[in-house]
């Protein structure tokens, strides 16, 4: 993010907003201000159309049909794998496994790689800012294997303390799993450095890319990530589809995650031989429509350019940080020097749920609660926060609306 231009990024936001019909509505009589894209991003018309077209024109099951429709749907679905490969800059399509989302991606690795490779006394390292989806699967694995879960601490800004991370690493460390961008704080972690440190200790690294992929360019090869996982619905695609990237050699050595159709070569009652990658990990009929929708979403993002998105959002975030900081009694939670998208905060004497309800009455959609990161709330000693999260379709005017809304909150509770 340090190489971003200092000038205002030229993104024609008003025109782009036309691609999102959902944004053109009023809520409680006020224009909708959608500031909850870290929970799920809105979908452009091209995504909705791609899903509709699949159902209206090409609908068939994939991979085994010899008929025209099946070939069309297979081609469209598999094309998305190729698009994700380019989006994440992976080497080959065999390294990309369709999953339901980031959560399933992490569970797949914890379950398949973890069960095979983790033994009693081994250690798994996560961080203090993880989403529950990157805590619980590892906890379950550690419990099953009598392994130990260790946690990289963070500072009051919400930045990981790498000196402490270094101290945690030892020959028993088998896996380091951490988020690229924190959903609760917006912190962008120094992923490349953290992966190098893990590798130096002989451990693997898994990166949760749920919040990074909508905002910054990812290059899994440059990062040297062993596993990288993402959700379609955070990158303007539909819910229920995502992708797990894994290095070919690792995936080849891992046992299947689920058994069923599509993941096999030959089945007899005595023995089953499994399909080659990536299908070995893809049992059952997948979310075909969702996969096709994800492909359309990535095309859309690529047309705008992820670098342009990052540059514009950076300015939006700086503007929002400045405006919110100026509100008396408001404290930003998460003030890392490298940040993306997220403005989380608490206000003196006013509970986040009351803030959320009063903002909603003004048409402003924010998230309130623990954001599936209860340990983060405990660390900052708050029961919950209010989180405004940005996407490229948000405007400077919407930040002003948020600020006005928060003044109204303070009026009511004055």
């Amino acid at each position: 993010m340090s190489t971003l231009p200092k000038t205002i990024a030229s993104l024609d936001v008003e025109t782009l907003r036309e691609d999102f019909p959902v944004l053109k509505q009023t809520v409680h009589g006020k224009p909708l201000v959608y500031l909850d894209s870290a929970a799920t991003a809105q979908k452009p018309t091209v995504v909705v159309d791609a899903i509709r077209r699949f159902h209206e024109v090409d609908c068939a099951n994939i991979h085994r049909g010899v008929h025209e429709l099946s070939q069309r749907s297979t081609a469209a679905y598999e094309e998305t794998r190729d698009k994700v490969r380019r989006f994440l800059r992976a080497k080959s399509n065999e390294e990309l496994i369709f999953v339901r989302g980031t959560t399933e991606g992490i569970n797949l690795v914890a379950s398949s790689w973890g069960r095979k490779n983790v033994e009693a006394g081994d250690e798994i390292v996560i961080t203090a800012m993880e989403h529950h989806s990157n805590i619980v699967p590892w906890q379950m694995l550690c419990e099953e294997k009598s392994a130990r879960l260790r946690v990289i601490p963070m500072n009051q800004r919400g930045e990981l303390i790498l000196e402490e991370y270094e101290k945690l690493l030892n020959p028993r460390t088998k896996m380091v799993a951490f988020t690229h961008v924190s959903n609760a704080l917006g912190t962008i972690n120094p992923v490349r450095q953290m992966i190098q440190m893990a590798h130096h200790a002989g451990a693997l690294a898994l990166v949760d890319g749920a919040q990074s992929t909508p905002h910054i360019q990812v290059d899994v090869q440059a990062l040297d990530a062993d596993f990288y996982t993402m959700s379609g619905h955070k990158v303007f695609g539909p819910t229920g589809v995502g992708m797990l990237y894994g290095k070919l050699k690792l995936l080849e050595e891992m046992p299947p995650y689920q058994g069923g159709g599509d993941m096999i070569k030959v089945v007899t009652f005595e023995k089953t031989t499994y399909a080659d990658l990536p299908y070995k990990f893809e049992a059952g009929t997948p979310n075909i429509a969702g996969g096709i929708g994800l492909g359309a979403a990535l095309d859309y993002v690529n047309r705008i350019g992820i670098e342009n998105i990052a540059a514009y959002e950076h300015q939006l975030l700086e503007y929002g940080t400045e405006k919110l900081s100026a509100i008396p009694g408001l404290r930003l939670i998460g003030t890392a020097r490298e940040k993306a998208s997220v403005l989380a905060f608490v206000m003196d004497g006013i509970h986040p749920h009351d803030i959320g309800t009063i903002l909603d009455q003004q048409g402003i959609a924010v998230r309130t609660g623990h954001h599936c990161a209860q340990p983060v709330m405990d660390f900052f000693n708050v029961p919950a926060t209010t989180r405004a999260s940005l996407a490229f379709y948000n405007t400077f005017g919407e930040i002003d609306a948020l600020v006005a809304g928060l003044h109204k909150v303070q009026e009511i509770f004055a």
Partner: protein
Amino acid sequence: MVHDLYEETILDHSKRPRNCHAMQDANRQADGYNPLCGDKLRLFLKMDGDIVKDVSFVGSGCAISTASASLMTESLKGKTREEALKLLDKFHELLTTDVQVSKDLGKLVVFCGVRDYPARVKCATLAWHTLKSALTSGETTSTE
């Protein structure tokens, strides 16, 4: 309008909750937790036979849940166990149905506006669910 929800009495009780303290000589106690929003509440009861002699609470929560706990404690003192449980039913009815507001609710009618905010019903009922658990089993209760 949002002012119907954040009615004056509710704001008053959320800022200055009544009976908001631990009780050393309580003979019943229960914890309530709303995992969705992190609201926590501990309720203390001093029962004299079947009668609520004293009631207090501690905890952290939003304005609606704090005010609800505060007003609940005010309305319970001197009531029998059965009367308290009946009031709980009436209160729940007030929040979740369109029935005519019952006269028995007294001050609690200020929560009438909550019925227009389904996401907030759990905030208003946390204290009452905790009461039920204190009166019946005394275990941790959850509104989820």
